[in-house]
């Protein structure tokens, strides 16, 4: 047995598959769809995960929040001083931020106080950020700009907690490459945020702590917690781990829900393989009678499974790739993203490696192939003698 014989058997298999075009193309179609759906889910969540991990590498190492009755409360700014006195802490800065529900477009914005400017070469902001103490100006995310039809130079009007309208000149808009981070942001000067939310004086939303050595962040978090028992320190590492778990969890959940469809397909494959028509059975008997061996028939059945699953697998992966990375996963994104008004519209970076491929194989090809083994063997042991006896 060498290469020629395998190629010949493959030839025959293809010929034989083509004789039952509709049935086999139907199976390839359904299988492709299964790979496409599974692949889209995996690619999408994996890319989100990798992007989130990269993006969040720059976020504060430690956030200190004050809790009251299990809810987050504003934190007195003067605690910053005490925390910065802890050994290993290099700086503490209060953060002022909150959510704003826009009745007009029924969307949630994130309002954030500016604290400094971006580095000079940053290409992701068109215009500039408001200065920390500047009043009456704003930088907004693409999503907000689209929802409110604004551009640089227009004004955006928000209603403060006191009920009066505040107008801001838009001086900066984030570029679309940054939408995964900034879609719903409105960056204002600090005095404006305080006025908009009517925050009491000397209070901030929470404190961002920078540490000299990140491996010591948990120790510092412990110290903060023992000094201020009503606080909740959040480590960057924890956030990153949470994101990792969450995306894995989400796609796992969808996959589990989707498993029903997969099982249905496997049953179809099993049925197709076991329900050999009398004609097919007779053919296999003839092949055996004219000199094909049982293992040749098993090989033919192997090729049959391979041709169907490999074609579907490759087509499915290609479609999933195009769907996720060229069309922004238009079919599944809503399920993963939730039902927002401002959908961050971004092009995902295609992080793909053998892991995704192996995972897809284990989820689609292996169950299919496995479900055809025993039926193939049953077909292959057809007695050649039966054909002779008619």
């Amino acid at each position, binding site marked *: 047995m060498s290469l020629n014989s395998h190629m010949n*058997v493959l030839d025959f298999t293809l*010929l034989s598959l083509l004789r039952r075009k509709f049935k086999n193309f139907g199976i390839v179609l359904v299988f492709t769809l299964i790979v496409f759906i599974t692949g889209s889910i995996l690619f999408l969540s994996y890319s989100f995960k990798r992007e989130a991990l990269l993006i969040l590498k720059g976020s504060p190492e430690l956030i200190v929040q004050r809790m009251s009755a299990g809810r987050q409360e504003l934190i007195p700014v003067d605690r910053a001083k005490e925390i910065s006195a802890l050994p290993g802490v290099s700086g503490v800065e209060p953060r002022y931020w909150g959510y704003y529900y826009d009745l007009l477009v029924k969307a949630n914005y994130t309002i954030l106080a500016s604290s400094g400017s971006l580095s000079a070469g940053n290409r992701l902001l068109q215009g500039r950020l408001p200065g920390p103490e500047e009043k009456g100006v704003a930088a907004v995310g693409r999503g907000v700009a689209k929802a409110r039809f604004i551009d640089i130079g227009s004004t955006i009007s928000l209603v403060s907690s006191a009920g009066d309208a505040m107008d801001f000149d838009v001086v900066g808009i984030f570029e679309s490459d940054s939408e995964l981070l900034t879609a719903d942001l409105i960056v204002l000067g600090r005095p404006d945020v305080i006025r908009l939310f009517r925050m009491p004086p000397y209070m901030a939303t929470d404190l961002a702590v920078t540490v000299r050595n990140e491996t010591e962040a948990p120790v510092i978090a412990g110290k903060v917690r023992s000094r201020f028992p009503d606080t909740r320190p959040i480590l960057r590492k924890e956030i990153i781990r949470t994101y990792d778990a969450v995306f894995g969890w989400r796609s796992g959940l969808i996959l589990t829900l989707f498993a029903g469809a997969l099982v249905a397909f496997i049953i179809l494959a099993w049925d197709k393989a076991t329900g050999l028509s009398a004609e097919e059975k007779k053919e296999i008997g003839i092949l055996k*009678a004219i*000199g094909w061996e049982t293992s040749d028939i098993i090989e033919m059945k192997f090729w049959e499974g391979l041709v169907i699953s490999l074609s579907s697998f490759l087509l499915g992966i290609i479609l999933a790739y195009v769907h996720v990375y060229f069309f922004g996963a238009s079919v599944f994104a809503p399920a993963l993203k939730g039902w927002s008004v401002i959908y961050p519209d971004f092009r995902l970076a295609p992080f793909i490696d053998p892991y995704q491929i192996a995972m897809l194989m284990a989820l689609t090809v292996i169950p299919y192939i496995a479900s055809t083994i025993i039926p193939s063997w049953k077909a292959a042991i057809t007695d050649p003698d039966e054909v002779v*006896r*008619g």
Partner: protein
Amino acid sequence: MNETIIQTNELTKYYNKGKANEVLAVSGVSVGIRHGDFAVLKGPSGSGKTTMLSLLGCMTRPTSGSITLEGRDISHLPERFLTDIRRTTYGFIFQQFHLIQGMSVLQNVMLPLYPTDVDLPKLKKKAEGLLEGIGMMKRRDFPVQGLSGGEQQRTAIARALINDPEIVLADEPTAHLDTALSRDFMAIMKDLWEKGKTVIIASHDPIVFENEYAALVVEMRDGAVRNVTRK
């Protein structure tokens, strides 16, 4: 050339042994077939001819007794090796022709050697040669289901010859043919026999067993040998 090629000894075959539908198809058959014999298994249907042919052709193993092929006992060989023997030594022509529907004449002829290490273009050439020899070349790419009975049988003959078999077996070859076509078939068989092949035919058609060159006629009834005539 007159030494024995196949020798059977007390060959017995049961189907479904030990079950309610047990059938004794062949019982205690001992015959010897020589190189270059033109042998006919003669007898009414149900006499065990076909089972005998199946046993001689390595399609199935005997329940007891033995078959020796060129001095080698093959009655206990596993199926894998029986197939090997069948593939290299035998050409089989079935009563119902047993062509594979939906494939062309040429493809059908080539089929037996697909799982061997043969080069496909070479195999194709050989198959075309065989088709040429029996006047089927014009039907080369015809799907087999569109052929007449005689043409189907010619295709089946070409298929049986693709592996240059030493022994050609045919089961009731003339059952579905009219007299003229039956004579054509016998002419082809005679031609093969003259080329030195051993031909074994199971039939109850006088056109077959009353031939002058049918050297060995084994008459069977109820699974046993009634009469052996050697001319």
